[in-house]
């Protein structure tokens, strides 16, 4: 269904029929932007969000204690450590709340965009990648360092660290595809302005051609 406005613009409210939104871009034999790839990421991110929210609720003292089936009281020592308090003085909010926000961002940015967003909205995929990959790796390293720095371990924090690393493994293919798409556009014309336009989701014959090559003309 389409609507043609007075200035001649066409507004589609469904997907354009001539484009294969399930096309697999090189080098993959699947579409990394497909819902089957993105929904699991969002579900796992939501688990991280719920765990982090629970830990933040403890840091806000809205729940009396932090559940830990493995390390017992050590979880609360981690969540109430000097490092945690120092971060709270700096951030003004508990560090677990910021973690919850990051996981929610993973889920929200994972759901936004079409199943061909690696081409149509590279900025969104890159933003999603920044949220998942560098932030995920840094948070996982910080959590894994807690034993050395704080001297205690927090089971749920370790679970969120594992979730972060799983998300990195699941998300990198789509980010790589978008970066590869942008790189090929750049290599074709060496035009910074064209690259920026492509990154921002503006069409051009060059971007269309590169995408067609990556998907085998689909």
């Amino acid at each position, binding site marked *: 269904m389409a609507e043609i406005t007075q200035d001649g613009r066409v507004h*589609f409210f469904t997907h354009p029929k001539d484009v294969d939104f399930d096309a697999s871009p090189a080098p993959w034999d699947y579409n990394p932007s497909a819902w089957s790839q993105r929904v699991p990421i969002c579900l796992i991110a939501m688990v991280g969000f719920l765990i982090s929210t629970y830990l933040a609720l403890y840091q806000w003292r809205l729940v009396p204690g932090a559940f830990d089936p493995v390390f017992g009281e050590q979880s609360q020592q981690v969540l109430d450590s000097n490092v945690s308090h120092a971060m709270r003085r700096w951030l*003004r*909010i508990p560090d677990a709340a910021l973690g919850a926000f990051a996981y*929610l961002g993973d889920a*929200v940015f994972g759901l936004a*965009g079409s199943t061909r967003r690696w081409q149509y*909205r590279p900025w969104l995929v890159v933003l999603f990648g920044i949220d998942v990959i560098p932030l995920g790796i840094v948070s996982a390293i910080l959590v894994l360092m807690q034993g050395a720095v704080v001297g205690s371990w927090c089971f749920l924090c370790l679970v969120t660290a594992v979730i972060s690393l799983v998300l990195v493994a699941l998300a990198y293919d789509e980010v790589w595809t978008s970066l590869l798409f942008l790189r090929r556009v750049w290599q074709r014309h060496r035009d910074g302005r064209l690259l920026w336009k492509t990154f921002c989701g503006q069409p051009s014959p060059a971007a269309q051609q590169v995408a067609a090559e990556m998907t085998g003309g689909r």
Partner: protein
Amino acid sequence: MLIDFGSAVALATFALLSFWPPTERAHVFNLPVGGGLILAGFLRSSATSVPAAAQNHIMLGLLVLMLAILPSRSNLPPRRWRELLART
């Protein structure tokens, strides 16, 4: 109180405008609203004393920033791509 009411009115206005095709990018104006909420949270707190309301402003501001950058009808290609695809 004024911050809460003003932010709510601005958020609702820009969010509603973003549903209308001629102003579909109005959601971007919610970015300064989110930034303002975070700034208000920091200005109303100190390293030693952070009122609950200030934390609420910071959390809400972060949430608004995250949602404000999402385009309208993000499940579809951007409008210019749709126009190009319609012509080809």
